[in-house]
């Protein structure tokens, strides 16, 4: 991915030298031409096109905003409820993310959505301990996190 972006910048710079005008407009035109060339040659790269990972990042951001809104509304309904029959719980979430930044991103996303807080990351980085404010079914909560955030992060980090 980094190699493809560097190649795209290199093509844009060569285009600037060819047309012998050093301004931003020429660079952007060269960048678009370079992207077209890289798109034509996509079979020769071992990894995905970087635009796909960029798209996955944008989708992850949109998913985060959606989850943030929905969970804020649910916590607001919990607070406004006259009788407090909630079931707080600490449960272990098994994860198979590998890199440090993936774990950090997952923990930040879980903590930033209200109602769930990451308390601790185990030493082998295979388990996250999460406190949730209202859990009916533990497997349900684990599945919802796994299917939303973890799947999106894996989609971003897949080479």
């Amino acid at each position: 991915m980094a190699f493809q972006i560097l190649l795209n910048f290199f093509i844009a710079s060569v285009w600037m030298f060819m047309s012998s005008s050093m301004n931003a407009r020429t660079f952007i035109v060269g960048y678009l031409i370079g992207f077209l060339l890289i798109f034509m040659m996509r079979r020769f790269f071992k990894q995905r096109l970087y635009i796909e990972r960029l798209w996955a990042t944008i989708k992850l951001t949109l998913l985060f905003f959606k989850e943030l809104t929905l969970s804020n509304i649910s916590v607001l309904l919990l607070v406004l409820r006259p009788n407090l029959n909630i079931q707080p719980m600490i449960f272990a979430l098994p994860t198979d993310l590998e890199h440090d930044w993936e774990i950090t991103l997952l923990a930040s996303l879980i903590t930033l959505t209200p109602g769930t807080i990451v308390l601790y990351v185990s030493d082998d980085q295979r388990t996250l301990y999460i406190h949730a404010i209202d859990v009916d079914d533990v497997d349900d909560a684990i599945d919802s996190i796994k299917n939303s955030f973890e799947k999106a992060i894996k989609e971003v980090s897949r080479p």
Partner: protein
Amino acid sequence: MKTNDVILQTTTKVVFFIIFLFSIHIFFAGHYSPGGGFVGGLLTTGAIVLLLLAFDLKTVQKALPFNFTIMTGIGLLLALGTASGSIFFDVPFFTHAFSHFNLPLFGETSLHTAMIFDAGVYLVVVGAAITMIQTIGGDT
């Protein structure tokens, strides 16, 4: 009891650069807007302290192999040299000089010898603060 600090360390690796960049910006902004050598030096110290909190003393000393005591001395020499440079031009002590230069990359830039004095202040602040923190935090 050693805990797993993966979240703190990964976040520190990103945030450190942002704080350091902002400290450089504050250092250069001291002439017409708030900022200057002292605040910039304290912000740089804050970035290094964040590193010290996330990692340990030995790792940071290996990563930044500066002798901070000598850095304080260099800062004082810079400030004193800027002040005593005015003696050679037959003007009162601490008289600053400034003029406009045409630099190749920045274009028309106004350069002022007060910036060298500020760099001395910056080095003194960083050196003194980190020396204090390392001395208090060290095991010896």
